[in-house]
Protein backbone atom coordinates (compact mmCIF):
# COMPACT_ATOMS: atom_id res chain seq x y z
CA UNK A 1 0.00 0.00 0.00
CA UNK A 2 1.61 3.22 -1.03
CA UNK A 3 -0.07 5.40 1.53
CA UNK A 4 1.38 8.82 2.09
CA UNK A 5 0.31 10.79 5.11
CA UNK A 6 1.66 14.21 5.74
CA UNK A 7 1.18 13.94 9.47
CA UNK A 8 3.91 11.33 9.68
CA UNK A 9 6.54 13.82 8.56
CA UNK A 10 5.73 16.11 11.44
CA UNK A 11 5.05 13.45 14.04
CA UNK A 12 7.71 12.93 16.66
CA UNK A 13 9.94 9.97 15.75
CA UNK A 14 8.46 7.20 17.82
CA UNK A 15 9.15 3.66 16.82
CA UNK A 16 5.82 2.01 17.61
CA UNK A 17 3.05 4.43 16.85
CA UNK A 18 3.71 5.47 13.26
CA UNK A 19 3.54 1.95 11.96
CA UNK A 20 0.29 1.30 13.77
CA UNK A 21 -1.18 4.56 12.49
CA UNK A 22 -0.02 3.70 9.03
CA UNK A 23 -1.74 0.36 9.03
CA UNK A 24 -4.90 1.77 10.48
CA UNK A 25 -4.94 4.61 7.99
CA UNK A 26 -4.12 2.46 5.01
CA UNK A 27 -7.41 0.60 5.27
CA UNK A 28 -9.45 3.67 6.13
CA UNK A 29 -9.97 5.12 2.61
CA UNK A 30 -11.10 1.74 1.32
CA UNK A 31 -13.57 1.37 4.17
CA UNK A 32 -14.93 4.84 3.48
CA UNK A 33 -15.44 4.04 -0.18
CA UNK A 34 -16.71 0.50 0.35
CA UNK A 35 -20.46 1.17 0.86
CA UNK A 36 -20.70 3.46 -2.14
CA UNK A 37 -18.32 1.25 -4.09
CA UNK A 38 -20.37 -1.90 -3.63
CA UNK A 39 -23.61 -0.23 -4.75
CA UNK A 40 -21.83 1.54 -7.59
CA UNK A 41 -20.43 -1.78 -8.76
CA UNK A 42 -23.81 -3.53 -8.51
CA UNK A 43 -25.99 -0.83 -10.05
CA UNK A 44 -23.63 0.86 -12.48
CA UNK A 45 -20.77 -1.36 -13.56
CA UNK A 46 -22.48 -4.76 -13.52
CA UNK A 47 -25.50 -3.54 -15.59
CA UNK A 48 -23.13 -2.12 -18.19
CA UNK A 49 -21.24 -5.41 -18.44
CA UNK A 50 -24.50 -7.35 -18.44
CA UNK A 51 -25.96 -5.16 -21.18
CA UNK A 52 -22.86 -5.75 -23.31
CA UNK A 53 -23.13 -9.49 -22.66
CA UNK A 54 -26.86 -9.58 -23.49
CA UNK A 55 -26.33 -7.60 -26.65
CA UNK A 56 -24.28 -10.48 -28.07
CA UNK A 57 -27.28 -12.83 -28.18
CA UNK A 58 -30.39 -13.19 -30.24
CA UNK A 59 -33.73 -14.85 -29.67
CA UNK A 60 -34.84 -16.98 -32.61
CA UNK A 61 -37.89 -18.99 -33.47
CA UNK A 62 -37.90 -21.81 -35.94
CA UNK A 63 -40.11 -22.03 -38.98
CA UNK A 64 -43.53 -20.53 -38.40
CA UNK A 65 -42.61 -19.01 -35.08
CA UNK A 66 -44.34 -21.75 -33.11
CA UNK A 67 -42.76 -23.36 -30.10
CA UNK A 68 -40.27 -21.94 -27.68
CA UNK A 69 -37.71 -19.46 -28.91
CA UNK A 70 -34.07 -20.40 -28.66
CA UNK A 71 -31.39 -17.96 -27.60
CA UNK A 72 -28.30 -18.08 -29.79
CA UNK A 73 -24.99 -16.35 -29.73
CA UNK A 74 -25.08 -13.62 -32.32
CA UNK A 75 -21.64 -12.06 -31.99
CA UNK A 76 -21.72 -8.44 -33.02
CA UNK A 77 -24.76 -9.07 -35.20
CA UNK A 78 -27.05 -6.85 -33.12
CA UNK A 79 -24.62 -3.96 -33.44
CA UNK A 80 -24.47 -4.43 -37.22
CA UNK A 81 -28.27 -4.26 -37.16
CA UNK A 82 -28.27 -1.11 -35.01
CA UNK A 83 -25.94 0.62 -37.44
CA UNK A 84 -28.23 -0.30 -40.32
CA UNK A 85 -31.41 0.56 -38.44
CA UNK A 86 -33.13 3.57 -40.01
CA UNK A 87 -35.33 3.96 -36.89
CA UNK A 88 -32.28 4.37 -34.69
CA UNK A 89 -30.68 6.89 -37.04
CA UNK A 90 -33.89 8.87 -37.32
CA UNK A 91 -34.16 8.99 -33.52
CA UNK A 92 -30.55 10.04 -33.00
CA UNK A 93 -30.82 12.63 -35.76
CA UNK A 94 -33.98 14.00 -34.18
CA UNK A 95 -32.50 14.42 -30.72
CA UNK A 96 -29.34 15.96 -32.19
CA UNK A 97 -31.39 18.54 -34.09
CA UNK A 98 -33.36 19.13 -30.93
CA UNK A 99 -30.19 19.50 -28.87
CA UNK A 100 -28.49 21.89 -31.27
CA UNK A 101 -31.43 24.27 -30.90
CA UNK A 102 -32.75 23.65 -27.37
CA UNK A 103 -29.49 23.51 -25.40
CA UNK A 104 -28.08 26.86 -26.63
CA UNK A 105 -31.46 28.60 -26.25
CA UNK A 106 -31.96 27.29 -22.74
CA UNK A 107 -28.41 27.95 -21.54
CA UNK A 108 -28.39 31.37 -23.23
CA UNK A 109 -31.51 32.28 -21.28
CA UNK A 110 -30.08 30.82 -18.07
CA UNK A 111 -26.88 32.83 -18.47
CA UNK A 112 -28.78 36.02 -19.30
CA UNK A 113 -31.06 35.62 -16.27
CA UNK A 114 -28.11 34.87 -14.00
CA UNK A 115 -26.19 37.92 -15.26
CA UNK A 116 -29.23 40.17 -14.86
CA UNK A 117 -29.90 38.89 -11.36
CA UNK A 118 -26.24 39.44 -10.51
CA UNK A 119 -26.26 42.97 -11.94
CA UNK A 120 -27.42 46.23 -10.40
CA UNK A 121 -30.15 47.03 -12.94
CA UNK A 122 -32.74 44.60 -11.59
CA UNK A 123 -34.93 44.84 -8.52
CA UNK A 124 -36.95 42.17 -6.73
CA UNK A 125 -34.19 39.67 -7.38
CA UNK A 126 -35.41 37.11 -4.85
CA UNK A 127 -38.82 37.05 -6.53
CA UNK A 128 -37.40 36.56 -10.02
CA UNK A 129 -34.99 33.89 -8.87
CA UNK A 130 -37.79 31.95 -7.25
CA UNK A 131 -40.23 32.41 -10.15
CA UNK A 132 -37.68 31.07 -12.65
CA UNK A 133 -36.59 28.23 -10.42
CA UNK A 134 -40.04 26.99 -9.44
CA UNK A 135 -40.61 24.75 -12.50
CA UNK A 136 -37.68 22.61 -11.32
CA UNK A 137 -39.91 21.44 -8.48
CA UNK A 138 -42.26 19.85 -11.00
CA UNK A 139 -41.27 16.34 -12.11
CA UNK A 140 -40.51 16.13 -15.83
CA UNK A 141 -43.38 13.74 -16.44
CA UNK A 142 -45.87 16.03 -14.69
CA UNK A 143 -44.51 19.05 -16.57
CA UNK A 144 -45.11 17.06 -19.74
CA UNK A 145 -48.69 16.25 -18.65
CA UNK A 146 -49.29 19.90 -17.81
CA UNK A 147 -47.96 21.22 -21.09
CA UNK A 148 -49.75 18.41 -22.90
CA UNK A 149 -53.01 19.90 -21.64
CA UNK A 150 -51.84 23.35 -22.75
CA UNK A 151 -51.15 21.95 -26.24
CA UNK A 152 -54.24 19.75 -26.55
CA UNK A 153 -56.75 21.63 -28.74
CA UNK A 154 -59.73 20.39 -26.71
CA UNK A 155 -58.35 21.85 -23.47
CA UNK A 156 -55.74 24.45 -24.34
CA UNK A 157 -56.45 28.05 -23.37
CA UNK A 158 -53.65 29.04 -25.77
CA UNK A 159 -55.30 27.44 -28.79
CA UNK A 160 -58.73 28.76 -27.71
CA UNK A 161 -57.32 32.22 -27.09
CA UNK A 162 -55.71 32.37 -30.52
CA UNK A 163 -58.82 31.20 -32.34
CA UNK A 164 -61.13 33.54 -30.45
CA UNK A 165 -58.88 36.43 -31.49
CA UNK A 166 -59.28 35.26 -35.09
CA UNK A 167 -55.63 34.29 -35.43
CA UNK A 168 -56.34 30.70 -36.40
CA UNK A 169 -55.55 27.81 -34.11
CA UNK A 170 -51.89 26.92 -33.73
CA UNK A 171 -51.09 23.22 -33.98
CA UNK A 172 -48.49 22.39 -31.35
CA UNK A 173 -48.68 18.69 -32.08
CA UNK A 174 -48.15 18.65 -35.85
CA UNK A 175 -45.36 16.72 -37.59
CA UNK A 176 -43.12 19.78 -37.77
CA UNK A 177 -43.99 21.39 -34.46
CA UNK A 178 -44.20 18.59 -31.90
CA UNK A 179 -40.42 18.36 -31.51
CA UNK A 180 -40.34 22.04 -30.52
CA UNK A 181 -43.31 21.51 -28.25
CA UNK A 182 -41.13 18.96 -26.43
CA UNK A 183 -38.18 21.38 -26.47
CA UNK A 184 -40.39 23.99 -24.83
CA UNK A 185 -41.25 21.62 -21.97
CA UNK A 186 -37.57 20.91 -21.30
CA UNK A 187 -36.67 24.59 -21.51
CA UNK A 188 -39.47 25.51 -19.12
CA UNK A 189 -38.34 22.88 -16.59
CA UNK A 190 -34.57 23.33 -16.67
CA UNK A 191 -33.81 26.99 -17.42
CA UNK A 192 -34.18 28.08 -13.80
CA UNK A 193 -32.11 25.20 -12.51
CA UNK A 194 -29.23 26.03 -14.84
CA UNK A 195 -29.65 29.70 -13.98
CA UNK A 196 -29.15 28.88 -10.31
CA UNK A 197 -25.91 26.96 -10.98
CA UNK A 198 -24.52 29.86 -13.05
CA UNK A 199 -25.78 32.39 -10.52
CA UNK A 200 -24.02 30.54 -7.69
CA UNK A 201 -20.77 30.69 -9.69
CA UNK A 202 -21.27 34.44 -10.29
CA UNK A 203 -21.79 35.03 -6.58
CA UNK A 204 -18.53 33.25 -5.84
CA UNK A 205 -16.47 35.76 -7.87
CA UNK A 206 -14.53 37.92 -5.41
CA UNK A 207 -15.53 41.59 -5.38
CA UNK A 208 -11.97 42.85 -5.81
CA UNK A 209 -12.03 41.74 -9.44
CA UNK A 210 -14.85 44.18 -10.14
CA UNK A 211 -13.01 46.92 -8.29
CA UNK A 212 -10.01 46.63 -10.56
CA UNK A 213 -12.24 46.39 -13.63
CA UNK A 214 -13.98 49.61 -12.66
CA UNK A 215 -10.68 51.35 -12.13
CA UNK A 216 -9.75 50.27 -15.65
CA UNK A 217 -12.97 51.87 -16.91
CA UNK A 218 -14.86 48.68 -17.64
CA UNK A 219 -18.60 48.70 -17.05
CA UNK A 220 -21.95 47.00 -17.54
CA UNK A 221 -22.01 44.58 -20.41
CA UNK A 222 -18.25 44.76 -20.87
CA UNK A 223 -17.73 43.49 -17.33
CA UNK A 224 -20.25 40.74 -18.03
CA UNK A 225 -18.60 39.74 -21.31
CA UNK A 226 -14.92 40.05 -20.41
CA UNK A 227 -14.93 39.13 -16.73
CA UNK A 228 -18.05 37.39 -15.57
CA UNK A 229 -18.64 34.97 -18.44
CA UNK A 230 -15.02 33.70 -18.59
CA UNK A 231 -15.05 33.22 -14.83
CA UNK A 232 -18.26 31.19 -14.84
CA UNK A 233 -17.20 29.12 -17.85
CA UNK A 234 -16.74 25.97 -15.71
CA UNK A 235 -20.34 26.28 -14.53
CA UNK A 236 -21.46 26.70 -18.16
CA UNK A 237 -19.52 23.59 -19.16
CA UNK A 238 -21.15 21.64 -16.32
CA UNK A 239 -24.69 22.73 -17.24
CA UNK A 240 -23.97 22.03 -20.89
CA UNK A 241 -22.81 18.49 -20.16
CA UNK A 242 -25.91 17.81 -18.08
CA UNK A 243 -28.04 19.17 -20.92
CA UNK A 244 -26.31 16.98 -23.52
CA UNK A 245 -26.80 13.87 -21.39
CA UNK A 246 -30.42 14.86 -20.72
CA UNK A 247 -31.13 15.48 -24.40
CA UNK A 248 -29.87 12.10 -25.54
CA UNK A 249 -32.02 10.26 -23.00
CA UNK A 250 -35.22 12.14 -23.84
CA UNK A 251 -38.13 9.88 -22.94
CA UNK A 252 -40.90 11.14 -20.66
CA UNK A 253 -42.00 14.11 -22.77
CA UNK A 254 -42.39 12.24 -26.08
CA UNK A 255 -44.07 9.35 -24.24
CA UNK A 256 -46.68 11.64 -22.70
CA UNK A 257 -47.26 13.64 -25.88
CA UNK A 258 -47.56 10.45 -27.96
CA UNK A 259 -50.94 9.96 -26.26
CA UNK A 260 -52.30 13.14 -27.83
CA UNK A 261 -50.25 13.43 -31.00
CA UNK A 262 -50.11 11.04 -33.94
CA UNK A 263 -46.75 12.40 -34.92
CA UNK A 264 -44.72 10.59 -32.27
CA UNK A 265 -43.98 6.98 -33.17
CA UNK A 266 -42.33 4.31 -31.05
CA UNK A 267 -38.87 5.19 -32.33
CA UNK A 268 -39.21 8.94 -31.91
CA UNK A 269 -36.17 9.17 -29.64
CA UNK A 270 -33.47 6.49 -29.20
CA UNK A 271 -34.41 5.92 -25.58
CA UNK A 272 -38.10 5.62 -26.43
CA UNK A 273 -37.13 3.13 -29.14
CA UNK A 274 -35.04 1.02 -26.74
CA UNK A 275 -37.91 0.98 -24.23
CA UNK A 276 -40.43 -0.20 -26.81
CA UNK A 277 -38.04 -2.75 -28.24
CA UNK A 278 -37.65 -4.24 -24.76
CA UNK A 279 -41.16 -4.00 -23.35
CA UNK A 280 -43.31 -3.66 -26.45
CA UNK A 281 -41.60 -6.30 -28.60
CA UNK A 282 -39.92 -8.26 -25.78
CA UNK A 283 -36.68 -8.13 -27.74
CA UNK A 284 -34.34 -7.62 -24.79
CA UNK A 285 -31.22 -8.53 -26.72
CA UNK A 286 -31.65 -5.92 -29.39
CA UNK A 287 -32.75 -3.40 -26.75
CA UNK A 288 -29.51 -4.11 -24.84
CA UNK A 289 -27.50 -3.34 -27.99
CA UNK A 290 -29.50 -0.12 -28.47
CA UNK A 291 -28.81 0.87 -24.85
CA UNK A 292 -25.09 0.22 -25.20
CA UNK A 293 -24.82 2.22 -28.41
CA UNK A 294 -26.88 5.06 -26.91
CA UNK A 295 -24.67 5.14 -23.81
CA UNK A 296 -21.58 5.21 -26.03
CA UNK A 297 -22.97 7.98 -28.24
CA UNK A 298 -23.85 10.02 -25.14
CA UNK A 299 -20.42 9.42 -23.64
CA UNK A 300 -18.68 10.43 -26.87
CA UNK A 301 -20.66 13.67 -27.06
CA UNK A 302 -20.39 14.67 -23.41
CA UNK A 303 -16.77 13.60 -23.02
CA UNK A 304 -15.85 15.13 -26.38
CA UNK A 305 -17.47 18.38 -25.33
CA UNK A 306 -15.54 18.34 -22.06
CA UNK A 307 -12.22 17.74 -23.88
CA UNK A 308 -12.84 20.40 -26.51
CA UNK A 309 -13.81 23.06 -23.97
CA UNK A 310 -10.89 22.16 -21.74
CA UNK A 311 -8.46 22.52 -24.59
CA UNK A 312 -10.02 25.70 -25.95
CA UNK A 313 -10.58 27.66 -22.82
CA UNK A 314 -8.38 25.86 -20.33
CA UNK A 315 -11.47 25.47 -18.20
Amino acid at each position, binding site marked *: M*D*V*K*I*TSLDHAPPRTQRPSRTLR*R*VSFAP*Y*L*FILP*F*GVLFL*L*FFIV*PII*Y*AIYQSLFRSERNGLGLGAATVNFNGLGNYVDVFHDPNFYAGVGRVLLYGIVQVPVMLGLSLL*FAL*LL*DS*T*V*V*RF*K*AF*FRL*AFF*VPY*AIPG*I*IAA*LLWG*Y*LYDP*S*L*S*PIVKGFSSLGLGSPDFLGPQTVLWAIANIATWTWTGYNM*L*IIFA*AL*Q*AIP*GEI*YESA*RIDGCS*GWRVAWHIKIPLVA*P*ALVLTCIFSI*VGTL*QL*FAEPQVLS*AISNNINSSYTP*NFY*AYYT*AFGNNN*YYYAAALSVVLALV*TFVFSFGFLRVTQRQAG*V
Partner: protein
Amino acid sequence: MSQQTATVPVATTREAVTTRQRRPSPFSLEQVGAMTFLLVFVIYFLVPFFWLIVSSTKNAGDLFGTFGLWFSPNFNLWSNLQQLFTYNSGIYVRWLLNTLIYAGVGALLGTLLAAMAGYALAKYVFRGRDLIFSAVLGAILVPSTALALPLYLLMSKVGLTNTYWAVLLPSIVSPFGVYLSRIYAGASVPDELLEAARIDGAGEFRTFATVAMRLMVPALVTILLFQFVAIWNNYFLPLVMLSDQKLFPITVGLQTWNVTTGGANKFLYTLIIAGALVSSIPLLFGCIILQRFWRGGLGAGSVKG
Protein backbone atom coordinates in the same frame (compact mmCIF):
# COMPACT_ATOMS: atom_id res chain seq x y z
CA MET B 1 -31.93 48.93 -2.82
CA SER B 2 -31.86 47.68 0.73
CA GLN B 3 -34.56 45.20 -0.21
CA GLN B 4 -32.50 43.24 -2.66
CA THR B 5 -29.20 43.43 -0.85
CA ALA B 6 -30.82 42.00 2.24
CA THR B 7 -31.72 38.82 0.39
CA VAL B 8 -28.29 38.37 -1.16
CA PRO B 9 -25.93 38.73 1.76
CA VAL B 10 -22.89 37.58 -0.19
CA ALA B 11 -23.05 40.46 -2.60
CA THR B 12 -24.13 43.18 -0.23
CA THR B 13 -21.00 45.24 -0.18
CA ARG B 14 -20.24 44.81 -3.84
CA GLU B 15 -23.68 45.83 -5.02
CA ALA B 16 -23.97 48.70 -2.64
CA VAL B 17 -20.71 50.13 -3.93
CA THR B 18 -21.53 49.74 -7.62
CA THR B 19 -25.01 51.12 -7.11
CA ARG B 20 -23.78 54.26 -5.47
CA GLN B 21 -21.20 54.94 -8.12
CA ARG B 22 -22.89 54.07 -11.36
CA ARG B 23 -26.65 54.18 -10.92
CA PRO B 24 -27.66 57.50 -9.56
CA SER B 25 -31.12 57.58 -11.21
CA PRO B 26 -33.54 54.89 -10.02
CA PHE B 27 -35.12 54.25 -13.43
CA SER B 28 -32.74 54.17 -16.35
CA LEU B 29 -33.77 52.89 -19.76
CA GLU B 30 -31.56 49.88 -19.22
CA GLN B 31 -33.36 49.07 -16.01
CA VAL B 32 -36.83 49.29 -17.54
CA GLY B 33 -35.74 47.10 -20.46
CA ALA B 34 -34.26 44.46 -18.17
CA MET B 35 -37.29 44.41 -15.90
CA THR B 36 -39.70 44.12 -18.85
CA PHE B 37 -37.66 41.25 -20.27
CA LEU B 38 -37.68 39.41 -16.94
CA LEU B 39 -41.40 40.03 -16.38
CA VAL B 40 -42.25 38.50 -19.76
CA PHE B 41 -40.43 35.37 -18.67
CA VAL B 42 -42.08 35.37 -15.26
CA ILE B 43 -45.37 35.06 -17.16
CA TYR B 44 -43.93 32.20 -19.23
CA PHE B 45 -42.72 30.32 -16.15
CA LEU B 46 -45.76 30.91 -13.97
CA VAL B 47 -48.70 30.65 -16.41
CA PRO B 48 -48.70 26.83 -16.38
CA PHE B 49 -48.94 26.98 -12.57
CA PHE B 50 -51.77 29.46 -12.78
CA TRP B 51 -53.55 27.18 -15.24
CA LEU B 52 -52.99 24.26 -12.89
CA ILE B 53 -54.47 26.14 -9.93
CA VAL B 54 -57.44 27.42 -11.94
CA SER B 55 -58.11 24.00 -13.46
CA SER B 56 -57.99 22.20 -10.14
CA THR B 57 -61.07 24.18 -9.09
CA LYS B 58 -63.16 23.00 -12.04
CA ASN B 59 -65.26 19.94 -12.66
CA ALA B 60 -64.72 17.88 -15.79
CA GLY B 61 -67.43 19.73 -17.72
CA ASP B 62 -66.05 23.19 -16.98
CA LEU B 63 -62.51 21.99 -17.66
CA PHE B 64 -63.39 21.52 -21.30
CA GLY B 65 -66.22 24.02 -21.51
CA THR B 66 -64.76 27.22 -20.02
CA PHE B 67 -61.72 29.34 -20.78
CA GLY B 68 -58.69 27.70 -19.18
CA LEU B 69 -57.02 30.73 -17.68
CA TRP B 70 -59.90 31.91 -15.54
CA PHE B 71 -62.09 30.41 -12.82
CA SER B 72 -65.52 29.04 -13.66
CA PRO B 73 -68.60 29.90 -11.55
CA ASN B 74 -68.58 26.46 -9.94
CA PHE B 75 -65.83 26.16 -7.34
CA ASN B 76 -65.03 22.47 -7.27
CA LEU B 77 -61.62 22.30 -5.60
CA TRP B 78 -62.72 20.55 -2.40
CA SER B 79 -64.72 17.86 -4.11
CA ASN B 80 -61.85 17.31 -6.57
CA LEU B 81 -59.44 16.88 -3.69
CA GLN B 82 -61.83 14.60 -1.88
CA GLN B 83 -62.19 12.48 -4.99
CA LEU B 84 -58.43 12.47 -5.47
CA PHE B 85 -57.75 11.17 -1.97
CA THR B 86 -60.49 8.54 -2.01
CA TYR B 87 -60.44 7.27 -5.61
CA ASN B 88 -59.45 3.60 -5.89
CA SER B 89 -59.37 3.33 -2.07
CA GLY B 90 -56.91 6.17 -1.64
CA ILE B 91 -54.22 4.93 -4.01
CA TYR B 92 -52.98 8.50 -4.51
CA VAL B 93 -52.04 8.85 -0.82
CA ARG B 94 -50.13 5.61 -1.13
CA TRP B 95 -48.25 6.98 -4.15
CA LEU B 96 -47.36 10.10 -2.21
CA LEU B 97 -46.00 8.02 0.67
CA ASN B 98 -44.06 5.78 -1.73
CA THR B 99 -42.47 8.81 -3.35
CA LEU B 100 -41.54 10.15 0.05
CA ILE B 101 -39.95 6.82 1.01
CA TYR B 102 -38.00 6.49 -2.24
CA ALA B 103 -36.78 10.10 -2.21
CA GLY B 104 -36.27 10.44 1.55
CA VAL B 105 -34.45 7.19 2.25
CA GLY B 106 -32.60 7.20 -1.07
CA ALA B 107 -31.35 10.78 -0.66
CA LEU B 108 -30.34 10.37 3.00
CA LEU B 109 -28.39 7.15 2.47
CA GLY B 110 -27.02 8.34 -0.86
CA THR B 111 -25.71 11.56 0.65
CA LEU B 112 -24.03 9.74 3.51
CA LEU B 113 -22.32 7.29 1.16
CA ALA B 114 -21.33 10.08 -1.22
CA ALA B 115 -19.89 12.10 1.68
CA MET B 116 -17.77 9.17 2.84
CA ALA B 117 -16.53 8.28 -0.64
CA GLY B 118 -15.87 11.89 -1.62
CA TYR B 119 -14.01 12.54 1.62
CA ALA B 120 -11.81 9.49 1.10
CA LEU B 121 -11.06 10.49 -2.50
CA ALA B 122 -10.15 14.01 -1.44
CA LYS B 123 -8.21 13.41 1.76
CA TYR B 124 -6.27 10.16 1.33
CA VAL B 125 -3.64 9.04 -1.13
CA PHE B 126 -4.12 5.38 -1.91
CA ARG B 127 -3.78 2.90 -4.71
CA GLY B 128 -6.68 2.95 -7.14
CA ARG B 129 -7.83 6.43 -6.19
CA ASP B 130 -7.52 7.90 -9.67
CA LEU B 131 -9.16 4.88 -11.23
CA ILE B 132 -12.14 5.13 -8.86
CA PHE B 133 -12.52 8.84 -9.47
CA SER B 134 -12.36 8.36 -13.25
CA ALA B 135 -15.07 5.71 -12.99
CA VAL B 136 -17.24 8.11 -10.98
CA LEU B 137 -16.70 10.89 -13.51
CA GLY B 138 -17.48 8.52 -16.37
CA ALA B 139 -20.69 7.48 -14.64
CA ILE B 140 -21.87 11.10 -14.59
CA LEU B 141 -21.52 11.17 -18.36
CA VAL B 142 -23.48 7.95 -18.94
CA PRO B 143 -27.26 8.36 -19.12
CA SER B 144 -28.91 6.54 -16.23
CA THR B 145 -31.82 5.48 -18.42
CA ALA B 146 -29.42 3.44 -20.55
CA LEU B 147 -28.72 1.43 -17.39
CA ALA B 148 -32.36 0.93 -16.51
CA LEU B 149 -33.05 -1.82 -19.05
CA PRO B 150 -30.08 -4.08 -18.15
CA LEU B 151 -30.76 -3.31 -14.49
CA TYR B 152 -34.31 -4.56 -14.95
CA LEU B 153 -33.05 -7.82 -16.45
CA LEU B 154 -30.57 -8.27 -13.60
CA MET B 155 -33.18 -7.49 -10.96
CA SER B 156 -35.61 -9.96 -12.48
CA LYS B 157 -32.90 -12.65 -12.32
CA VAL B 158 -32.72 -12.24 -8.54
CA GLY B 159 -36.46 -11.69 -8.18
CA LEU B 160 -36.21 -8.09 -7.02
CA THR B 161 -38.31 -6.45 -9.71
CA ASN B 162 -41.63 -5.11 -8.53
CA THR B 163 -40.35 -4.47 -4.98
CA TYR B 164 -39.37 -1.30 -3.12
CA TRP B 165 -35.72 -2.38 -3.36
CA ALA B 166 -35.74 -2.27 -7.15
CA VAL B 167 -36.22 1.50 -7.08
CA LEU B 168 -34.57 2.31 -3.77
CA LEU B 169 -31.20 0.58 -4.17
CA PRO B 170 -30.19 2.06 -7.55
CA SER B 171 -31.43 5.48 -6.37
CA ILE B 172 -28.88 5.52 -3.55
CA VAL B 173 -25.95 5.58 -5.97
CA SER B 174 -25.12 9.18 -6.85
CA PRO B 175 -21.85 9.63 -8.76
CA PHE B 176 -22.51 13.36 -9.01
CA GLY B 177 -22.84 13.47 -5.23
CA VAL B 178 -19.44 11.80 -4.84
CA TYR B 179 -17.95 14.26 -7.32
CA LEU B 180 -19.42 17.25 -5.46
CA SER B 181 -18.39 16.04 -2.04
CA ARG B 182 -14.85 15.22 -3.20
CA ILE B 183 -14.41 18.73 -4.54
CA TYR B 184 -15.95 20.32 -1.49
CA ALA B 185 -14.00 18.19 0.99
CA GLY B 186 -10.80 19.03 -0.87
CA ALA B 187 -11.53 22.74 -0.66
CA SER B 188 -13.06 23.11 2.81
CA VAL B 189 -11.52 20.45 5.08
CA PRO B 190 -7.98 21.55 6.03
CA ASP B 191 -5.40 18.77 6.41
CA GLU B 192 -4.05 20.43 9.57
CA LEU B 193 -7.39 19.91 11.30
CA LEU B 194 -7.45 16.21 10.45
CA GLU B 195 -3.87 15.85 11.68
CA ALA B 196 -4.78 17.56 14.92
CA ALA B 197 -7.69 15.17 15.40
CA ARG B 198 -5.44 12.18 14.71
CA ILE B 199 -2.78 13.40 17.11
CA ASP B 200 -5.50 13.76 19.72
CA GLY B 201 -6.11 10.08 19.21
CA ALA B 202 -9.37 10.18 17.25
CA GLY B 203 -9.92 7.22 14.93
CA GLU B 204 -10.29 7.75 11.20
CA PHE B 205 -14.03 7.36 11.25
CA ARG B 206 -14.46 9.62 14.25
CA THR B 207 -12.33 12.26 12.59
CA PHE B 208 -14.59 12.08 9.59
CA ALA B 209 -17.84 12.11 11.56
CA THR B 210 -16.94 14.87 14.03
CA VAL B 211 -14.57 17.12 12.07
CA ALA B 212 -14.97 16.66 8.32
CA MET B 213 -18.74 16.14 8.15
CA ARG B 214 -19.39 19.41 9.95
CA LEU B 215 -17.25 21.37 7.54
CA MET B 216 -18.95 19.70 4.60
CA VAL B 217 -22.50 20.57 5.67
CA PRO B 218 -23.22 23.15 2.91
CA ALA B 219 -22.16 20.68 0.24
CA LEU B 220 -24.06 17.84 1.90
CA VAL B 221 -27.27 19.87 1.97
CA THR B 222 -26.80 20.54 -1.74
CA ILE B 223 -26.20 16.88 -2.52
CA LEU B 224 -29.18 15.85 -0.38
CA LEU B 225 -31.51 18.26 -2.16
CA PHE B 226 -30.26 17.42 -5.63
CA GLN B 227 -30.72 13.75 -4.97
CA PHE B 228 -34.07 14.15 -3.25
CA VAL B 229 -35.44 16.09 -6.21
CA ALA B 230 -33.85 13.70 -8.71
CA ILE B 231 -35.45 10.65 -7.07
CA TRP B 232 -38.77 12.46 -6.51
CA ASN B 233 -38.82 13.33 -10.21
CA ASN B 234 -37.55 9.98 -11.44
CA TYR B 235 -39.91 8.33 -13.86
CA PHE B 236 -38.03 5.91 -16.06
CA LEU B 237 -36.55 3.63 -13.40
CA PRO B 238 -39.82 2.98 -11.48
CA LEU B 239 -41.69 2.68 -14.79
CA VAL B 240 -39.34 -0.10 -15.86
CA MET B 241 -39.09 -1.83 -12.49
CA LEU B 242 -42.62 -1.78 -11.10
CA SER B 243 -45.87 -3.30 -12.26
CA ASP B 244 -47.80 -3.28 -8.98
CA GLN B 245 -49.79 -0.04 -8.65
CA LYS B 246 -49.31 -0.10 -4.89
CA LEU B 247 -45.55 0.45 -5.27
CA PHE B 248 -45.75 3.31 -7.78
CA PRO B 249 -44.37 6.75 -7.06
CA ILE B 250 -46.49 9.78 -8.02
CA THR B 251 -44.88 10.19 -11.43
CA VAL B 252 -45.69 6.69 -12.70
CA GLY B 253 -49.09 6.73 -10.99
CA LEU B 254 -50.31 9.93 -12.63
CA GLN B 255 -49.08 8.76 -16.03
CA THR B 256 -51.03 5.50 -15.68
CA TRP B 257 -54.13 7.59 -15.01
CA ASN B 258 -53.25 9.74 -18.00
CA VAL B 259 -53.17 6.83 -20.45
CA THR B 260 -56.61 5.66 -19.29
CA THR B 261 -58.36 9.02 -19.62
CA GLY B 262 -60.88 9.55 -22.37
CA GLY B 263 -64.33 8.10 -22.96
CA ALA B 264 -66.01 7.15 -19.69
CA ASN B 265 -62.87 8.02 -17.75
CA LYS B 266 -63.02 11.72 -18.51
CA PHE B 267 -63.32 12.47 -14.78
CA LEU B 268 -59.70 11.29 -14.44
CA TYR B 269 -58.56 14.61 -15.96
CA THR B 270 -59.67 16.47 -12.86
CA LEU B 271 -57.94 13.88 -10.68
CA ILE B 272 -54.68 14.16 -12.61
CA ILE B 273 -54.76 17.94 -12.41
CA ALA B 274 -55.52 17.96 -8.69
CA GLY B 275 -52.91 15.24 -8.20
CA ALA B 276 -50.26 17.22 -10.08
CA LEU B 277 -51.02 20.28 -7.95
CA VAL B 278 -50.88 18.41 -4.64
CA SER B 279 -47.68 16.55 -5.56
CA SER B 280 -45.87 19.77 -6.45
CA ILE B 281 -46.58 21.45 -3.10
CA PRO B 282 -43.97 19.61 -0.96
CA LEU B 283 -41.13 20.28 -3.42
CA LEU B 284 -42.22 23.90 -3.91
CA PHE B 285 -41.99 24.51 -0.18
CA GLY B 286 -38.74 22.60 0.00
CA CYS B 287 -37.24 24.73 -2.75
CA ILE B 288 -38.41 27.99 -1.22
CA ILE B 289 -37.15 27.17 2.26
CA LEU B 290 -33.90 25.55 1.29
CA GLN B 291 -32.94 27.71 -1.67
CA ARG B 292 -30.67 29.81 0.50
CA PHE B 293 -28.92 26.72 1.86
CA TRP B 294 -27.80 25.19 -1.35
CA ARG B 295 -26.40 28.29 -2.94
CA GLY B 296 -23.25 27.87 -0.88
CA GLY B 297 -22.61 24.34 -2.04
CA LEU B 298 -23.78 24.78 -5.62
CA GLY B 299 -20.76 26.76 -6.66
CA ALA B 300 -18.51 23.89 -5.66
CA GLY B 301 -19.75 21.76 -8.53
CA SER B 302 -18.30 24.06 -11.13
CA VAL B 303 -14.83 24.20 -9.64
CA LYS B 304 -12.55 21.82 -11.45
CA GLY B 305 -10.86 19.37 -9.12
